[in-house]
């Protein structure tokens, strides 16, 4: 690893106790994130992407809880923080933005009020200074005529503008890491590109790392440097974006990439992975993907879920690469 890790997630487990038993929604997820890096987290609905993000910033809704594992930010352990220590972390070190910009903003307060409040929470300054800073932020995210817009209420602005304001709020205290949970899903396609470009530019300019959670592979391909593919609560493949897309190693990833139509190539039909991702209550034994996998063999059913192991240019959680792993280890 060249750059020191900003964020280190190690064997994170998120569970929900229900009356039918304990459900494991995030099953030993591990990854590293460097300063200023943009990591995409992609997967189907229910794969555990959002929960991983919420767990990192400590916003899991009860009864969900972090059952095992650890999260380190700048070398300090943060998953066990509570109360005031946790609050100081949020906004100043880690920010998070959510999917729907309309419901993310308080309808009864003006944009300016919400901005100045956030600014003054993290940096004590006068109301007028905070307002100046708010105007700067609005300008930075590309809001036209910010002096006018700052006194508007959220419902007076369009979806794209609202999401820009949400981004400005999340970046107001200059966090080192921003977790973006489906930031473009609720927006028009034409606006999506603008928002992803904005996110990319801002993070590059401020050196902020981003965890970009989405089910839209296209957004990842455009914006992220590395990507982690999640399936049924676990990361099944992780690697540089280009390598994961062009040289997918895990059968699930291969299926995903095969399902994307390629411009300029003639195809008879899109690859389809039969079946569907299992519900949390009915995860099959062994590798969770094995019932749908063309290349499954005995070990896939019998051994517990595999961890990430080197597989070509990436790392994949698949027994197919275990022989190579063992051979490589045997060679020294």
């Amino acid at each position, binding site marked *: 690893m060249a750059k020191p890790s900003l964020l280190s997630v190690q064997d994170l487990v998120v569970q929900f106790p229900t*009356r039918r038993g304990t459900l494991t929604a995030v099953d030993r997820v591990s990854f590293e994130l460097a300063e200023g890096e943009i990591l995409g987290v992609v997967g189907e609905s229910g794969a555990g992407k959002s929960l991983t993000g919420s767990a990192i910033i400590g916003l899991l809704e009860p009864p969900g809880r972090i059952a095992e594992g650890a999260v380190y930010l700048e070398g300090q352990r943060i998953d066990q923080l509570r109360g005031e220590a946790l609050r100081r972390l949020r906004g100043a070190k880690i920010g998070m933005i959510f999917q729907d910009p309309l419901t993310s903003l308080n309808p009864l307060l003006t944009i300016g009020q919400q901005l100045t409040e956030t600014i003054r929470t993290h940096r004590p300054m006068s109301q007028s200074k905070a307002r100046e800073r708010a105007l700067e932020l609005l300008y930075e995210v590309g809001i036209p005529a910010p002096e006018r817009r700052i006194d508007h209420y959220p419902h007076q602005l369009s979806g794209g503008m609202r999401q820009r304001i949400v981004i400005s709020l999340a970046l107001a205290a200059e966090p080192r890491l921003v977790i973006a949970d489906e930031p473009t899903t609720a927006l028009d396609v034409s606006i999506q590109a603008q928002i992803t470009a904005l996110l990319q530019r801002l993070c590059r300019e401020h050196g902020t790392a981003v965890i970009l959670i989405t089910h839209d592979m296209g957004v990842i391909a455009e914006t992220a440097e590395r990507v982690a593919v999640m399936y049924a609560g676990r990361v099944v493949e992780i690697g540089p974006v280009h390598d994961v897309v062009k040289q997918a190693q895990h059968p699930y990833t291969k299926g995903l990439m095969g399902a994307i139509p390629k411009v300029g190539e003639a195809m008879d039909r899109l690859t389809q992975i*039969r*079946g*569907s991702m*299992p*519900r949390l*209550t*009915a995860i*099959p034994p062994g590798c969770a993907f094995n*019932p*749908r996998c063309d290349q499954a063999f005995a070990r896939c059913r019998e051994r517990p879920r595999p961890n990430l192991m080197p597989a070509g240019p990436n790392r994949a959680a698949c027994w197919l690469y275990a022989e190579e792993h063992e051979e490589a280890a045997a060679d020294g």
Partner: protein
Amino acid sequence: MTDTVPPNVPTGTKSWWQRAAESDVLYSFRRSWLAQVSAVVTFVFVFMAVFAPWIAPFDPYDLSQVSLLDSLLPPVWAEGGDPRFLLGTDDQGRDILSTIMYGARISIFVGLASVLFAGILGVSLGLLSGYLGGAVDAVIMRLADIQLTFPAILIALLIDGIATAVIGGKGDAFTAYAVLTLSIGLSFWVQYARTVRGSTLVEKNKEYVQAARIIGRHPLSIMIRHVLPNVMGPVLVIATINLALAIILEATLSFLGVGVPVTEPSLGTLIRIGYDFLFSGEWWITFFPGLALAILALAVNLLGDWLRDALNPKLR
């Protein structure tokens, strides 16, 4: 390539009984001791109400059983109490325990009758309003809005007053009951109507209604078959909470003197009769009927609350 069955599809179907036994409602019931206690209490009252003529120690309205010599006796554990009259007697010599049983009987019957009336009226109007739409819908909903601005007690009092004036006096017992049921029921139909109207509107837009029209079957009858099951849950919740309100409303009206006929006092009437004696020290005449009413109202209320929470998908 043959499709293998994905692992998360349930195989086979369970019988209705199995599903009910595993259902969230029953689970919630078993876990809530409060719901169980309320259910038991309600059941005891209903039992008492239905079987009062057989299990009450006396018939307090049979004048041959009542003697002025027994009047104003305190409960059995107080000084001067008589073991025949466990909770004491009133100024006429009637056994308080028996009057409570008979009174509860009337309270519950009137309550149930009003809720039934309100429910049938409300559900029908809701169906009509949702299905016919247009002017009928507008008129019914306007009426509902106007009625909702006025509290139930006002409406009940008004209807009672008008009915009394029209009939010219209180009329016989049956008329009095009819008027009472009518006035309480008319105060409560709106909630049913609104809920059912909502469900009806949802169903009306579905394709099978149009399909029925094409086939030639009357869409209304088919729609009812689909609307009613969906709406039974909420209607049941409304009915239970309504029952508590109806019992309280009837007790209030009787307390005010415009409820059930005096010859067949309900719990509210008993409280009123006993109220005068509160100041001269004969507290038991008001206290025990009051306690009975409070327990009954509380139990039905709690049951309704629990049912609403158990059937609310958002809280699961």
